[in-house]
């Protein structure tokens, strides 16, 4: 009897140990992401701007992940929400002389209104149909940015957008931008983690798991899809506005289809449905082309090869690599 109890105790202890080791490993991708940001901050140089863009994308992809990874829906049109907020920020600060903070807040508010109006009918669609509808939203936003010249100045774009700042303080250095963006991205990822482990996040994940079961437990599926869509749009709007203030310029190309492309690559490489995935994916994908610069003509090929290798060896994304190392990988 005693022996049996001891064995059970031992088993429980080893289970606990492997559990905490797993939890440590789960943090690893995030730690690597933070280390890269710190390294560039200290090292300086032009990589600072590259990683800054990476952090802006990290916010954008974190929102996309809430909608696609947690809630299990598809959107190819998140760039539209970045565009609405970005242009709103640009126009309000340049043409109307608003401060950056109110312009940014207004941009996000406008994004939310549009997302609500668009999302309410569009989210009745599922799967491919939802994908097509959202793709259309992105294309429409692009066309509006090109054609509405009196406001957006068409292909010319808007330049001279003031840098980030509030109450007369302005962030003028690249390092300052990086530090600020790291803080905002950190808060953004933290907020996503809080959402994931709340009643809201569980309801969203339930919708992804089985809509029938979710409804049978009293979850208003349409409502939670819309909420996830709105939260994702808010993240996209924030990223879109931050971008124009960091770069000081905006044109339709900034929010073109390539933005969707890049965001999807980041999401899948980083690990869809994981908390640290979007951050890791964004930083890695933004840095990959830089890493292969010395390959010159073969740069794109090397980039493509790395993407394929990542998808083969880490199909659930970089953030799930820790599962492989801890020997708990599942097919």
């Amino acid at each position, binding site marked *: 009897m005693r022996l049996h109890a001891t064995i059970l105790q031992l088993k429980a202890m080893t289970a606990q140990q492997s*559990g905490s080791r797993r939890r440590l490993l789960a943090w690893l991708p995030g730690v690597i992401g933070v280390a890269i940001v710190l390294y560039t901050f200290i090292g300086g140089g032009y990589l600072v701007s590259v990683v800054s863009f990476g952090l802006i994308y990290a916010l954008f992809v974190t929102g996309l992940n809430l909608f696609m990874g947690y809630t299990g829906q598809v959107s190819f049109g998140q760039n539209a929400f970045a565009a609405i907020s970005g242009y709103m920020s640009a126009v309000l600060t340049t043409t109307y002389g608003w401060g950056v903070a109110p312009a940014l807040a207004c941009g996000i508010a406008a994004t939310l209104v549009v997302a609500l109006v668009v999302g309410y009918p569009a989210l009745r669609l599922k799967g491919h149909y939802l994908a097509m509808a959202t793709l259309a939203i992105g294309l429409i936003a692009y066309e509006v940015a090109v054609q509405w010249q009196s406001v957006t100045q068409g292909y010319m774009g808007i330049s001279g957008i003031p840098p980030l700042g509030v109450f007369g303080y302005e962030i003028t250095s690249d390092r300052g931008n990086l530090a600020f963006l790291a803080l905002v991205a950190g808060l953004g990822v933290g*907020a996503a983690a*809080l*959402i994931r482990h*709340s*009643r*809201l*996040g*569980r*309801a969203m*994940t*339930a919708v*992804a*798991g*089985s809509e*029938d*079961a*979710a*409804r*049978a*437990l*009293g*979850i*208003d*599926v349409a409502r939670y899809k819309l*909420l996830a869509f709105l*939260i994702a749009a808010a993240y996209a709007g924030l990223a879109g506005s931050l971008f124009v203030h960091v770069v000081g310029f905006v044109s339709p190309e900034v929010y073109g289809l390539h933005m969707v492309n890049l965001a999807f690559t980041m999401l899948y490489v980083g690990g869809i*449905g994981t908390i640290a995935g979007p951050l890791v994916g964004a930083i890695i994908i933004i840095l990959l082309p830089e890493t292969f610069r010395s390959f010159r003509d073969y740069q794109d090929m090397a980039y493509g090869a790395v993407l394929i290798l990542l998808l083969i060896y880490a199909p659930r994304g970089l953030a799930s690599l820790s599962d492989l190392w801890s020997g708990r990988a*599942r097919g």
Partner: protein
Amino acid sequence: MTGLLLVNSLCKRFGGLVAVDSVSFEVIAGRVTAVIGPNGAGKTTLFNLISGTIPPTSGQILFAGQNITGHAPEKVAAQGLVRTFQLVQLFQNLSVEENVKVGCHLHTRGGVLAALFRPRWAREEERAVEANARELLEFVGLADVAEASAATLPYGQQRLLEIARALAARPKLLLLDEPAAGLNREETQQLSSVIRRISERGTTVLLIEHDMTLVMNTADAIVVLDFGCKIAEGAPEDIRTNPAVIEAYLGGVEGISSVTGDNRKVVADE
């Protein structure tokens, strides 16, 4: 003896096919009621009508005095009528414990702001949800695997998890759609003990089942359907000897002994 659920001449037509043909019955509070019948008798359609998954062609469903005919599933669930599925519908992407926590959705609150700012009431509520989930996992015997991913559970445990999750919604009436399908003998025995204990906790149960052992061991009342019509209703011992039921199940061949004798898996329809 009050009727918690009253089904009143309920009909469902799919084109020319009458899947449920003016079925009426009532579920008495505190009892375990079973709906049985050969394949294609309309049992699952009946369940889908009651739980709001599909609207009826005509007829009425009254639950706890309220008319819930044609209400959406989430509305029906909010009234206290919670179902499980014939093919287990777990949230595969969540852990066992989180699955049960989702079940607590109806009697908790909090959206975006509660998630981000975690005020004291939200933290207290989260602790209560956690305790509730633990208690229910203990109840169905899954406490050991609380941290495991729901997708990794063997089928029998997935069934129990689905029941624990439904109980987390604190139903007045629990609808179980073929809970023993795909289970082996021991798992079925474990299941019938769980169903009995659910009933003892004061939750009324309505189940569809093929497994006669389970039905005879757990049900207080039985409703028999055949070709969409109710052909019998009563206590298990009456149903066992009812000629119409034997006719429906065994096509009139001598099967009385197998129905009345060792009541393991009499039904020859699956």
